[in-house]
């Protein structure tokens, strides 16, 4: 006798109802599968990997006569990861014998075409490249470019980085290795390996967590579509998606996606995806150039890039690699001999990962900001643009070394707590405005606060040359010899407290020749000169020189009370360094698409904003600062024959130490100070200038010999009074004047200018 409950149930489950339930279940399931199918197809076909923009340094151009020391070429090759060529001279290798280099260059696509791979012999003669010869033809080479150093990237969301490879570029051994170790049934299964699934199910039910048993297809699905959680539901989705992928796409397509997608390492916050990039990241060479042990190492990383990281856990990585080799041998992917040789070879991992997380984050940030004016952020992070920048790694290296070593020394000497001092450096080419080096802080690898771009510190006396330049643009009133008044000054302006500037030495200097007032950085005479010219006129000149931000027009602005960034100061001095031509500072030369098509050039742009005469005079006055003024200590670092122009800057209570200066080829601005704005007890000369001097000394500067414009004449004048004199007088100096502006009054000692003197005497008589 059956129970009434069962009767009721049987009555309820009619055949019709059962069919209905099954049908709706099937409908739901097929709906789900359909949804997954759409997802899989849409994503797989629409999958365009987001490729980061890559930023390159300037390529080193080699030509006979180039000023370059052998050790600088060695340093460049080392940075580029050129290795010592053994018997074979492969692209990317070199040999050095004293002053002779044999270099096998790598081919590279530049904006204006491809530089083919060359085998070069480079001979040096002291500090210059003497000759350059093509080894294959034994003919001289006029000009050759090395491949440029990769200095960073602008990464997609999640900081995924990759170098795309096509399946036919992937070594066959790698494919064999992957299949031997990860998925032996790859070519026969339909996305899922039933035995694997069963095994995984058992371990899961045992409570050991869900693991293993994934085919390459499943691994791809996981990486592509799913989150890393481990649940049965997710496993179910994964299995269905893997089946769907296999239905729609060939094994080759799946494999190609796999080798580009799989996660293989971490570099700071940058995720290394795909074998193409992993090959560069671990071995500093393209995937196609890897040998068997290297391929095996990459395969071994699939299981756990962090656990088997060959740089951090070499022993573990070696064991895992050899296990992979063993599997490959067992699967007959490699011969016995190959296996034996590969097993005993070292890991061969490049010590340093090449240019990923940038070595030069401050410079790359500047590049990024300049790009943002012209490109969408999204495109920069996904289109794989190739950015050719103007960074000169050799200049950057000199700047970094000078800043870091000097700051440590300065801290010790001035009893400043260690690591309290900070600094920033900008180096540019005086003629074309290209930025060659940029440091945003003492920890030069730190991707944080960029003091070169973002700190705004009072610039102190660095503003004075602008006052003097503005004056010298009125040659009828001001010349380098004009006497300025350095007696006490009180400036009263309604609504502000009285302003009473003092000199650094607390002394009033009376009547001072203009050039010496600047050379000695006298505050009072400079301020009085600025007030006579008008604060607004001076600030207009600051704008004319290239500073774009709004500026205060207070009297105290004349002594640099207002803040500018080191980059802005560089722009201001750039115009003086290039002889009155405003040249916008640039960090980018060209932009290419991912496949090497030219997209955009950032051209040299110049505009004459200061007449050649006054521009020549201000440089001459700034040369005086180094020759006989506040920066004369620079002669300890660099020969006076270089005629360097420069200006020191010190702010109230010695909180900021600045130096801006230029040689015949480079301009650099250095700032030293503390982030908490505490006094550092340094003047511009005792702080920033020492960094500048160290750096420039290692860069072999060109002497500064600006071309004298037509309307400039040299005239002997009495040093103190500025009266016209001649060579035979004592304490005379030969100064440049804009024609017609030289003093007419003669000093008593002058004999050779007698005629003129008499003429002047008559002139005065009748005036």
């Amino acid at each position, binding site marked *: 006798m059956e129970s009434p409950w069962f009767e009721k149930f049987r009555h309820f489950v009619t055949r019709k109802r059962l069919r209905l339930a099954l049908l709706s279940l099937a409908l739901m399931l097929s709906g789900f599968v359909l949804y997954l199918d759409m997802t899989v197809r849409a994503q797989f076909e629409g999958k365009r990997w987001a490729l980061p923009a890559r930023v390159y340094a300037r390529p080193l*151009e080699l*030509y*006979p*006569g180039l000023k370059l020391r052998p050790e600088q070429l060695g340093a460049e090759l080392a940075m580029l990861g050129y290795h010592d060529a053994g018997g074979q001279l492969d692209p990317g290798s070199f040999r050095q014998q004293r002053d002779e280099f044999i270099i096998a260059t790598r081919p590279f696509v530049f*904006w*204006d075409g491809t530089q083919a791979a060359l085998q070069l012999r480079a001979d040096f003669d002291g500090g210059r490249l003497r000759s350059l010869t093509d080894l294959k033809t034994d003919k001289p080479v*006029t*000009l050759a470019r090395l491949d440029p150093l990769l200095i960073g990237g602008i990464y997609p969301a999640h900081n995924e980085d990759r170098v795309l490879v096509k399946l036919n570029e992937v070594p066959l051994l790698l494919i064999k290795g992957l299949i031997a170790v990860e998925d032996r049934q790859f070519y026969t299964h339909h996305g899922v390996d039933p035995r694997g699934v069963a095994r995984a199910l058992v371990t899961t039910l045992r409570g050991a967590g869900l693991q293993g048993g994934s085919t390459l297809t499943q691994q791809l699905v996981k990486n592509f579509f799913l989150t890393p959680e481990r649940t049965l539901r997710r496993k179910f989705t994964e299995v269905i998606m893997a089946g769907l992928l296999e239905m729609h796409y060939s094994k080759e397509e799946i494999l190609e996606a796999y080798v580009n997608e799989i996660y293989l390492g971490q570099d700071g916050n940058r995720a290394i995806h795909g074998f193409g990039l992993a090959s560069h990241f671990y071995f500093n060479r393209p995937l196609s150039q890897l040998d068997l042990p290297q391929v095996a190492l990459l395969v071994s990383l699939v299981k756990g890039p962090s656990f088997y990281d060959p740089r951090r856990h070499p022993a573990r990585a070696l064991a895992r690699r050899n296990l992979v080799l063993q599997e490959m041998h067992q699967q007959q992917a490699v011969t016995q001999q190959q296996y034996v040789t590969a097993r005993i070879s070292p890991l061969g991992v490049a010590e340093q990962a090449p240019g990923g997380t940038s070595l030069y984050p401050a410079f790359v940030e500047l590049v990024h900001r300049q790009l943002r004016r012209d490109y969408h952020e999204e495109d920069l992070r996904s289109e794989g643009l190739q950015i050719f920048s103007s960074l000169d790694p050799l200049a950057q290296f000199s700047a970094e070394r000078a800043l870091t070593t000097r700051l440590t020394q300065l801290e010790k000497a001035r009893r400043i707590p260690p690591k309290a001092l900070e600094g920033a450096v900008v180096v540019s*080419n*005086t*003629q*074309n405005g*290209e930025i060659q080096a940029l440091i945003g802080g003492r920890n030069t690898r730190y991707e944080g606060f960029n003091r070169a771009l973002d700190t705004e510190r009072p610039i102190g006396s660095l503003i004075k040359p602008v006052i003097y330049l503005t004056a010298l643009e009125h040659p009828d009133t001001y010349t380098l010899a004009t006497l300025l008044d350095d007696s006490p000054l009180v400036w009263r302006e309604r609504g502000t407290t009285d302003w009473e500037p003092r000199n650094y030495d607390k002394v009033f200097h009376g009547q001072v020749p203009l050039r010496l007032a600047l050379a000695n950085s006298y505050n009072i005479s400079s301020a009085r000169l600025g007030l006579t010219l008008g604060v607004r006129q001076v600030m207009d000149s600051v704008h004319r020189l290239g500073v774009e931000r709004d500026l205060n027009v207070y009297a105290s602005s004349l002594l640099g009370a207002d803040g500018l960034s080191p980059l802005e100061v560089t722009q201001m001095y750039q115009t003086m360094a290039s*002889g009155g*031509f405003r040249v916008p500072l640039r960090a980018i030369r*060209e932009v290419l698409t991912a496949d090497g098509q030219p997209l955009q*050039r950032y*051209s*040299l*742009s*110049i*505009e*004459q904003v200061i007449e*050649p005469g006054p521009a020549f005079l201000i440089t001459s006055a700034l040369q005086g600062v180094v020759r006989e003024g506040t920066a004369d200590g620079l002669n300890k670092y660099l020969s006076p024959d270089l005629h360097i122009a420069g200006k020191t800057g010190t702010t109230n209570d010695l909180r900021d130490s600045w130096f801006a200066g230029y040689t015949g*080829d480079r301009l650099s601005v250095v700032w030293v100070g503390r982030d908490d704005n505490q006094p550092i007890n340094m003047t511009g000369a005792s702080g920033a200038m020492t960094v500048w001097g160290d750096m420039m000394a290692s860069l072999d500067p060109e002497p500064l010999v600006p*071309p004298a*414009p037509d309307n400039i004449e040299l005239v002997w004048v009495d040093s103190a009074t500025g009266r016209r004199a001649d060579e035979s007088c004592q304490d005379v100096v030969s100064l440049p004047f804009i024609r017609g502006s030289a003093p007419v009054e003669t000093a008593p000692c002058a004999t050779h200018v007698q005629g003129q003197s008499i003429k002047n005497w008559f002139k005065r008589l009748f005036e």
Partner: protein
Amino acid sequence: MRFYLTGLFLLGAVLISGCAGIATDEPELLPVSDNNAVTVLADAARADAASGKTDAAVASFERALRIEPRNPALWHELAKLRLQQGQYLQAEGLAAKSNGWAGGNKALRAGNWRIIGQARLKRGDYPGAQSAFDKAAEQVN
């Protein structure tokens, strides 16, 4: 004998080059530099300019200028290109820059002032253009 031949040849060369100097005041026909790398780049730039690839030409001149930033002939040729491209402000600035480095090269200075004059004409600055053309004439006299 050989010595005399060489001497004769040299004399001829001097005469010919002298004539070339008289026959034309186009400074760009003279070799742009004694640095072969610069010459190669300048030649490439001229070839590109002649076939209408002005962007490529500009790039090559800029590359040459990185090697020889004080070469007034390079600045001059770049100015001429910018004038052709209708970038008059740039043309004027570059020609002025060339003048800065031109020293006593009167032919080059005259050429630069003519570029400046033409650029100013195109921008509608007639008095400025006139004064530039006057300066060009001064150089020749």
